[in-house]
Structures are given as C-alpha cells and as structure tokens.
C-alpha cells in the first residue's frame, strides 16, 4: 500500500514522532474505517428506531438486538475517530462485542429462524448489508492491533522505523 503521508503543516512539532499521523486510529485508512462504522451506526440506529417505534410487538428480541448493534457501532465509530489511548481501548471492546454479536446472531438466525422473525443488522451474518457487518469487526480489530503495535514499537528505544 503506497500511502502518501504529507506532514500537515499545522501539526508537527520537532519532538513529534515522524509517523504520528499513522498512529491515530482515525487517520489514513482509518478515515474509511470510521466512515463505514459511521454508516453502519446510522443504518442500525435508523432501523432500530423505526422498528421500535412502528412495530415493536412483531419481534421484540430482534429489535432490541438492532438497538444494541446501533449503540455498539456508535461507540466504535466515536472511539476510532477520537483515537486517544482510552477511546481506542473502548473501541476495541466495542468491536470485540460486535464480532461476537455478528457471529452468534448470524449463527442463531440460521439455526433457529423462528426466534428471529424479522431481520436485524447481524442476522444471517449481515447478509442484508452485503456482509459488511461480518467483515468490519475483523478489519476493526486488525486496525486497532496494528495501531497498538505501532505505538508500542515506536515508544521503545531504537530507530523509529515506519512499518509498512
């Protein structure tokens, strides 16, 4: 990946690590990740609000799961976009829950379809959303893991090698 990193003229200070922009979970490729998370947050929020307001009685469990997914997507979006130590940790937890959620709900929606009469973001492994909900947590965890490797790697003594 030949990412070009023009150092921002307003940002750098002399003692800044050269790859400071790379270490932010919300910059570079992280922008795309944050954008996709934001989109799913929007989609899940819209869907769950609609489901709960318009026809909650039809499938309460599905709709509560939709709402849970919405909250998790919002937390992950904000966490990745803020990109400081604490918020990335919070995002990591959210993405892990998201991964477990999509796998469990995805499997259950096939195994016992009676329990899920109406769709959620996660049912059938996110089929209704082009399987993006299935792929996204893996990308998210990888991105956070890579971010951590970069941060800890460059804070140790030694030549600060950009890892790419």
């Amino acid at each position, binding site marked *: 990946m030949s990412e*070009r990193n023009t150092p*921002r003229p307003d940002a750098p200070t002399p003692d800044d690590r050269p790859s400071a922009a790379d270490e932010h979970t919300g*910059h*570079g490729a992280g*922008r795309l990740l944050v954008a996709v998370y934001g989109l799913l947050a929007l989609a899940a929020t819209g869907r769950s609000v609609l489901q709960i*307001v318009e026809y909650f009685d039809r499938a309460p469990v599905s709709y509560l799961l939709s709402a849970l997914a919405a909250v998790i997507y919002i937390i992950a979006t904000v966490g990745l976009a803020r990109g400081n130590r604490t918020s990335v940790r919070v995002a990591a937890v959210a993405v892990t829950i998201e991964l477990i959620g999509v796998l469990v709900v995805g499997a259950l929606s096939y195994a016992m379809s009676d329990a899920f009469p109406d769709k959620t973001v996660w049912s059938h492994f996110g089929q209704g959303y082009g399987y993006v909900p299935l792929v996204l947590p893996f990308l998210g965890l990888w991105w956070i893991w890579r971010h951590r490797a970069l941060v800890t790697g460059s804070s140790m003594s030694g030549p600060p090698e950009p890892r790419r």
Partner: protein
Amino acid sequence: MLLPLTVAILVACAVLLLLAGHRLWRDRLIDDPIIVVSAVIELALLVQLVIGLAQSGAIQDGAERATYIAYLFTVLVVLPVTVFIAIKERSRWAMGVVLGGAVVVAILVARILQIWQLNV
C-alpha cells in the same frame, strides 16, 4: 417517484465514482470537480426529498412509508460527511472515502426506488 430524477442521481453518482477513482489512481487529494459534483448530487437529493415527501401518502403500509421517509432523509447525510472527511485527510484514503460515499448514495437511491415500486 420521479424516475428521471432517480436515473440522473445514479448517473451523477457514477460520475463522482469515476472522478474519485481517477484521483485515487493518480494519488491526488480532493479538488473542485469532486466538490461540485457532490454538491449537484446533494441538491438533486434535496429535490428528491421534497418530491418524495409530497408523494409519500401513496404508500399505504405505515411501516413501509416510515422506512421510505427515513431513507429520503438518511441519504442526505452521506456526501457532506464524506466530503468533510476527504478535506481533512491528507492521503489517498481521502478519495477512498469519497468513492465509498458515491457507492452508498447510489445504493440508497436504488433502495428508495425499490421501496416505492414495491408499495405503490
């Protein structure tokens, strides 16, 4: 729904996709054509919102109508956010975000048309 408008929006999305793809390929940042095309699409989406709201009574099923209206509003959010992100990002990922935004708007517009055609 106004089918010509939907088709025009889809074509404009394709143009934005090609422009962003070109910038991405050339490793360039956001420029005026990207912003202008995005603004044109956004205007068309606003027209679609007005027409869509005016005609939404034709959808009998309440839940379907609510979904339809929700989509009409949601699609307005995408491009301003993607352009904002693209302006802030100083790498080729900026154009990646715009590319994704164009695809999402096209999908949402197609979905709006689908809801309309299934329910009227």
